[in-house]
């Protein structure tokens, strides 16, 4: 009676193995059902890694770190330091335990980054980090979700319960809409039926995206299916089987990329799906080759660099508790591995300087930078937080 999937899970328990083979294209799935942008096979499947605009020197690196509480559960103190010569040096935030930076999930520049800190109750506090001297912070704004995105004018889209709230730069609400609900359906996992099923109309925002035209998109999921909605233009398309979305990003050409587990496939590896934002069409599906075949996977990120295209970063621990890390670079058809130290951290950020910054988790108070031109990865002593703390977010703006 034991399913194949369960047998695989048990057989591989105790060993983390990020398999790095078979990183090729899986399918060319064509238009998603219900797409309003027209049918036909997408034509952007064979592009090379995005190389859009030259990198510019970094202006400031903001490091957010926490001092763990002496015993759990308790609030942790959160600090923000900007190096060098930044605008928010020494700001101290309290009563927050987990910090996730909203990814600057587009290659184009962002005038404002939104830092979110989460207290242990899971409520979000949004703090605007200004650039070029225009610093500001707005703390204490709570929400029941962790997903938001900053617009070019400094406004904010965020999910609050079953709705999406639109805020202006001073955090005044200017709009409210329902979360676009994906199609209901019986759940599947790794190609096998499970008892998971989602009630109709349930859905949550997995990611917000901003296209090159400035439109804001919501990528929603209900655990079984997904939806891509252009919130600016009021258009949407269904994304069948986009049920477990880990992250998304965009490039300057109007393509979006979604990191997810394809619930229709009998595989345990994560895939990257390509979407055409303007046409609201799905494109090629690429297998990262990264999966959880034992041990633990602590985090996995999809990143967009300016000169080196798509990146996937995965970190976890093996059965013995030793940290493992894998950085992959998309070559247009598959993923190549970039060597990084195993204990670099569980999270990654790409800066406007096109470097990859690795931090958090086993990285402790350290920030490791990766130069993709040379392949060199090293701890940056200037960015390191005090001993005993944990870096939770890095902005390079």
């Amino acid at each position, binding site marked *: *009676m*034991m*399913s*194949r*999937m*369960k047998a695989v*899970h*048990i057989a591989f*328990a105790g060993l983390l193995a990020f398999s790095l083979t078979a990183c090729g294209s899986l399918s060319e799935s064509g238009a998603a059902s219900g797409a309003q942008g027209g049918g036909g096979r997408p034509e952007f499947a064979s592009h090379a890694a995005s190389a859009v605009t030259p990198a510019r020197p970094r202006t400031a690196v903001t490091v957010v770190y*926490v001092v*763990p509480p002496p015993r*759990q*559960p*308790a609030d*942790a103190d959160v600090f923000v330091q900007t190096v060098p010569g930044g605008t928010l040096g020494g700001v101290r935030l309290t009563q927050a*335990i*987990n910090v996730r930076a909203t990814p600057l999930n587009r290659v184009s520049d962002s005038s404002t980054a939104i830092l979110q800190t*989460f207290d*242990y*109750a*899971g409520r979000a506090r949004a703090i605007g980090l200004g650039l070029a001297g225009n610093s500001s912070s707005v703390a204490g704004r709570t929400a*029941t979700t962790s997903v938001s995105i900053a617009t070019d004018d400094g406004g904010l889209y965020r999910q609050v319960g079953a709705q999406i709230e639109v805020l202006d730069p001073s955090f005044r609400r200017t709009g409210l809409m329902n979360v676009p609900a994906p199609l*209901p*359906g*019986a*759940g599947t*996992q*790794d190609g*096998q*039926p*499970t*008892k*998971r*099923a*989602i*009630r*109709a109309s*349930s*859905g*949550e925002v997995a990611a917000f995206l901003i296209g090159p035209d400035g439109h804001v998109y919501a990528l929603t*999921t*209900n*655990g079984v299916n997904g939806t891509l909605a252009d919130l600016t233009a009021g258009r949407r398309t269904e994304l069948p089987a986009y*049920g*477990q979305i*880990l992250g998304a990003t965009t490039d300057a050409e109007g393509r979006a990329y979604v990191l997810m587990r394809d619930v229709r496939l009998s595989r*345990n590896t994560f895939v990257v799906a390509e979407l055409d934002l303007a046409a609201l069409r799905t494109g090629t599906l690429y297998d990262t080759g990264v999966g*959880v075949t034992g041990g*633990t*996977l*602590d*985090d996995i990120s999809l990143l967009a660099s300016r000169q080196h295209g798509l990146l996937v970063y995965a970190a976890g*621990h093996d059965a013995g508790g030793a940290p493992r890390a894998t950085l992959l670079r998309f070559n247009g058809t598959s993923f190549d591995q970039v060597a990084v130290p195993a204990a670099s951290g*569980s*999270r990654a950020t790409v800066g406007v300087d096109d470097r990859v910054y690795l931090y*958090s*988790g*086993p990285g*402790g108070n350290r920030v490791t930078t990766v130069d993709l031109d040379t392949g060199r990865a090293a701890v940056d002593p200037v960015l390191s937080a005090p001993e005993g703390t*944990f870096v939770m977010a890095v902005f390079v703006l």
Partner: protein
Amino acid sequence: VDCVIRSRALIAIIAAVLVTMTATGAAEASHSAWAHCSSHWVPNRYTRQWTNNFYHGQFSWFWTYQPAVQNLNTQFSLNHLYPHTNSGTSFVEVGWYRGFGPEKIAVNSSFYTVMQDSVTPYQEKNFQDAPQNTFVLYEAQYIGFNFSTNKYIWRVYANSQAEPGLWTWENRDLGMGKAISGGETNANGNQMIGRIVPSHLLQISGTWYNWTDATMAQLGDSTFICDQPNVVLTYNVRFDDYQFNGTVVP
């Protein structure tokens, strides 16, 4: 009449699919559950109640005894509770089951726990037999955050709140969870019976609340219920004193 005929035809088709999948060994028989009310086909049958708000902990006394399970090697019947995320893709679960488990064929009702998050596939652990014909405590409790892995720590308890509990999970997504309690089975003909008394509790930031109508109103929350049509209930009480007794029919 046409509707009935169509419904029966649909049920027959679904049954045929079920039989086929069982024959090929493809059907999933896991104890984890995410199934709010849905008219769509799911492999398992269930009755349950759940909240709309998020909580740090959930505590219940389940009457633990021996439901009739036709084939202990392939089928199960259980009671469980599990805080979960809104999409249901992440949860921590604890309860008792009788019948099939991936690590054990439970001739007598036994403890089990399950975890899944957005990067970790379904994991189930099976444990020793539960005390029979008595109320046994079950609890899922958020206890902290692991900065080395960036995951929330949840501990589950069964029969005793003594540390270190039944098992400790780390979950990437579940800082708080929507509460859910109920029963589930994976086959027609099995009994699905449960009694959750004398207390059924929800916790926020260290404070426990009785899961009652009054508490729901106080917390601005609502309790939702669902009994799949396949579950014929002979007795069903909700909220703090949650009881059900039924048999699954085709």
